[in-house]
């Protein structure tokens, strides 16, 4: 148990370092969201709402796609945390299902972007920590 906690603490610390480095990159990142691209072509809020839904879908898919690679490791070594992550993805999926209905009529549901952001932050922190721990050799994958 002590070993597990030490491992997890190391993972989270490494993740914070990576996040700090990542934050420095954000300011010079190219504009590559669907919303940003569509906003260059129209200011129609109905169309922008659909683009925002597309970005939310991509956010979910990209994070889930990356997590699946670690799912087996997490399930074996950190089952509680794995269950927590799966729960978060379930919540995100629920938000997206609700969002889809709104997107069809050109509306962004209230608080949905903020919820997605909150969930994504939690998962991204874990993913970056796992990446860093594997790269540094702290965990074998």
């Amino acid at each position, binding site marked *: 148990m002590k070993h597990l906690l030490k491992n997890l603490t190391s993972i989270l610390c490494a993740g914070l370092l990576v*996040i700090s480095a*990542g*934050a420095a*990159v*954000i300011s010079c*990142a190219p*504009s*590559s*969201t*669907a*919303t*940003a*691209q*569509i*906003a260059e*072509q*129209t*200011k129609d*809020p109905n*169309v*922008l*709402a*659909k*683009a*925002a*839904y*597309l*970005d*939310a*879908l*991509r*956010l*979910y*898919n*990209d*994070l*889930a796609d*990356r*997590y*699946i690679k670690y799912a*087996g490791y997490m*399930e074996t070594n950190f*089952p509680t945390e794995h*269950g927590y992550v*799966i729960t978060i*993805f*379930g919540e995100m*999926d629920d938000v*997206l299902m609700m969002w*889809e209905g709104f*997107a069809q009529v*050109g*509306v*962004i549901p209230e608080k949905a*972007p903020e919820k*997605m*952001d909150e969930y*994504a932050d939690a998962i*991204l922190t874990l993913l*970056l920590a796992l990446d860093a721990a594997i790269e540094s050799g702290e965990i074998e994958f």
Partner: protein
Amino acid sequence: MTAIADAAIVAALILDIISMYNSRGIEVDLDSLSEAIENEKARRDEINKRLFKKNDNE
């Protein structure tokens, strides 16, 4: 106006993820927007099968 502001929030948060995680980019315009949405929905369906199936096996 609120929808535009909300869309800007979404764009900002997705851009954060793309920047920090080197996600694949997307090229979309008004003509391809609906198709892109359908493609991502299909991708989500496939991902969910793998993601939640693993958890169901616990």
